[in-house]
């Protein structure tokens, strides 16, 4: 890949890592807080359904994962399996779409 492409991936990896650091912290803190009072799944869904704020938060979370994970997997495939070149990037782009799609399916499931 060109210097421009590699640098773009590096920037995307760093930016998505910063977003994930925030999202994971909020997500874990919310989970710990939510279960302390003994909330049931139905009660949690009652709070998330129709809540645009949670939709935006978890959509951002999913987008960051879909960007971060494939870029991180890229050197692992290159260094451990010797898999480099366009075929690797096509498969990783597909992985990003799968992660994004499955993640958004889950997000919409607790929103709608």
């Amino acid at each position, binding site marked *: *890949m*060109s*210097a*421009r492409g*590699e*640098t*773009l*991936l*590096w*920037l995307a990896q760093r930016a998505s890592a910063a977003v994930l650091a925030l999202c994971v912290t909020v997500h874990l803190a919310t989970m710990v807080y939510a279960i302390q009072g003994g909330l049931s799944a139905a009660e949690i869904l009652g709070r998330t359904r129709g809540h645009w704020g949670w939709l935006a938060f978890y959509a951002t979370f999913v987008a960051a994962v879909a960007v971060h994970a494939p870029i991180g997997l890229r*050197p692992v495939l*290159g*260094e*451990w399996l010797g898999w*480099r070149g366009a075929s690797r990037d096509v498969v990783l782009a597909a992985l990003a779409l799968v992660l994004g799609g499955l993640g958004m399916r889950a997000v919409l499931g607790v929103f709608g």
Partner: protein
Amino acid sequence: MDALRVRVWRGAAEGAFQAFEVPRQASQTVLDVVTTIQRVLDPSLAYRFACRVGMCGSCAMTVNGVARWTCRTHVDQVARDGQLEIAPLRNLPVIRDLVADMSPFFDKWARAEGRFRGARTRHDDFERIAPQSAPRRAVDAGIECIGCAVCYASCDVVAQNPEYLGPAALNRAWTLHNDLRDVARRERLRAVAGDAGCHACHTQMGCTERCPKQLTPTASIAGLKRAAAKAWLAGEL
């Protein structure tokens, strides 16, 4: 007199360790041990050295599994139970015995645009660079590299990806990037930011851990990553 039990690599890519017993001496270096073997015990042993005082960077070898400059490494520092195992540098082809082929190492300096490219002639005045300026200090931090390839042999990214430019070439590129007289910064960033360039570094810091000159190639590589990112954002990459 105590004897040091030494196992020395013989052969090239294929080969085996050969055992020698070498008399212990006060203040004996690993290079002294290899020289004793070659001059007294087995003149067919091939190894490389020149200055013997840590300036030329030619005598690096793998000593008890760790890449080191042998002329400045005392036996007392590295011998385990009176034993030494000496092998050629990792991550480079072996020519014979303890002599590694340095061609890939220096070819990567060339690929990383590790050559100064100025625009001034002898008719121009000197460039005036403040010694305390940030670019000059960045150059100072990396300029003392002696090209021994200890960092290259200690780098796991090179081991996993033979195309990776490696710490020394990237450190060289970083010193030139900060040289205000140099006119090839954009080309150099393009050369070091592509496949197997600075972004491939995992910041494991094996190079910094092992550099006999106490340089920090990891910091130089991080500087190149930032410089490439800034150039990308400015549309100059």
